[in-house]
């Protein structure tokens, strides 16, 4: 008696009952280059997360710098070129670890201020070195306004630029939205008066 014909349907059923496998060939990730002049000019346009990316930073900085350079304070110091300005770290009051991004933003701002030829800018590296040293010695927070004033004075700055970024972070109905608000201020070291202030906003979300 031949058993072969009886085994065939069994094999067929076994094959059918086995877990399905997904064919993934051809989906291996690869590195690409993006930005203007590359094969992917729009690579930087898409949002990848709710954190601030380069495009957000550039737009936030552009908004603030345009306002700053159109302000009465800028008009005033343009009359006396060479005024020394320090750039103080931006306080991160958000729920995201964006200190690196904020440093990039300050770096861009420093570049723009230096290239304006209107103000002299204290090296942020030297300033950070000194601030951190004194902060450790005196157990002070670098975001303490009195401390910022003290260090800026020691560096010979007449004004310092500072700010803070905060967020409103919400979850609702399968979505998450983070609203960033960046405040920027120019403080006069001698008087602690606010000479310029501006607010710029950006929202990021994960939507369905």
């Amino acid at each position, binding site marked *: 008696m031949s058993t072969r*014909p*009886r085994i065939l*349907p*069994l094999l067929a*059923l*076994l094959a*059918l*009952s*086995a*877990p399905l496998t997904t064919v993934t060939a051809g989906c291996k990730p690869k590195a690409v280059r993006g930005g203007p002049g590359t094969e992917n000019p729009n690579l930087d346009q898409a949002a990848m*997360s709710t954190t601030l990316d380069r495009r957000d930073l550039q737009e936030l900085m552009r908004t603030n710098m345009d306002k700053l350079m159109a302000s009465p304070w800028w008009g005033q110091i343009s009359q006396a070129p060479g005024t020394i300005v320090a750039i103080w770290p931006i*306080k*991160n*009051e*958000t*729920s*995201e*670890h964006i*200190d690196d991004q904020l440093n990039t933003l300050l770096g861009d701002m420093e570049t723009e201020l230096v290239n304006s030829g209107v103000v002299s800018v204290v090296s942020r590296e030297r300033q950070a070195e000194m601030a951190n040293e004194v902060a*450790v*010695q*005196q*157990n002070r*927070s670098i*975001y*303490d306004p009195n401390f910022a004033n003290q260090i800026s004075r020691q560096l010979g700055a007449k004004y310092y630029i500072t700010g803070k970024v905060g*967020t409103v*972070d919400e*979850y609702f*109905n*399968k*979505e*998450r939205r983070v609203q960033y608000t960046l405040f920027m201020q120019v403080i006069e070291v001698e008087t602690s008066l606010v000479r310029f202030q501006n607010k710029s906003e950006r929202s990021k979300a*994960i939507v369905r």
Partner: protein
Amino acid sequence: MSGRRSPARPLRRALKWAGLALVAPVVVAACATYSERTQLARDAAQAGDVAGTEKVLNKFLKTKSSADLPTEWKKETIVALLERSMVLHAKGDWRSSAKDMVAADKELVLLDIGRDAGQVGKWIFSDSSGKYHAPPSEKLALNAINMLNYVLAGDLSGARVEAKRFTITREYLGQLDAGKSAHGAFGSYIAGFVFERLGETDTALRYYDEALQEQPFPSLRAPVARLAARSSFRSPRIDELLALQPTTTQPEAAPAEATPPPAPLGEILVVMNLGRVPYKVPERMPIGLAVGMGAAYITGSAAVLERSALKFVVYPELVPSGALFNTGQLLVDGVEWPLELATNLDAEIVREYEALKPKIIGAAITRLIVRAAVAEGARAAGNQAKDGAGAIVGLLAALAAEGAMVAADKPDTRSWTLLPAFVFVARVPVAPGQHRLAVTAMGSGGREHRDISVDVKPGGFAVVDVTTLR
């Protein structure tokens, strides 16, 4: 009895046993779950071999070293990365630990967003086929321990971010179940410390108040008194603490000559993370008992189980970690200071699990019903085989189908198994200068002793962390 036996009967019996023999190894071999696959990491941790634990986890994550983040996020990647972050924390590599926790936290947020509305708080899936959803205890511990990472790395700005994330999670969990899951006194305590040191008095007091809602921390009397003198924020708990007789935070047992020196004092915050939390293992339960426990959460008809070859349900059961230490001792410059239990994660995880156990069992039975239904379908198809062998083919097909599905269905034993079971804190006012700390972890497994030296600036602070992983 008839002398004639069907010629097909011996063949049928042989094929039945052959079928079972075919299915059984598949079921056994393919069922290694997360907790089984990471057992070597826990074994190394139990032996005090932190480097060994790290090595096992890097192999699991397919990363060359702990400097690398995983390149692919699979079903077990997040939880394994959390395990590695805890190892790095125990090693004192705070920055790398923080990097792992931030990466894992970001992925967890994306997963939660991806779930259906109303499901975010339901971490009940008892099979491991889905993506990982951390329970409240793990979510809150993640932000709390990462806050500590940043404090230990001297980055109060980073700690502030984690404090905010901790609050968002805590408030969200509070909305879900009327605050039952919004525990985490340890996180609130550390957040209070962070904001106190950032000079943000009101916020610091609010966090300390949050911590006091859960535990009567005697060590907070002095900080709260200091902050309250500069803030108008009050709550019944703050008022109660302020109404107490002025006291030093010196322990009663401390000798008189150890009275804190005059201001400006410094402060040492000591955090002791001891033991490991319970973890899940695959466990079998007879179907009858399981149906009784999870009846309210079963989807589908349990009647189909009557023809199932398997008469048990496999589900993830929580078991003790067997860790060595559960208490500790702290000496600062030879004087003993009390350690306060800030968070008992061991008890919190058991409570969470027990509350969800009927749902977990119900989900396991539901999956069993699906398997049995598919097996019945295969049996029906097999029964149509010709030459009188339909019943045998049907039986084998049913067994094969059920076996294959059992093999693919693993109970979800994923959890952050290297989380400390007990978190203790102590705050010690000290004169500026060098201080010697002797920290001893104790428990059924003996003792582990560490000598640590710290330098405290006038009005400054030092934070000391001791994490044993065992």
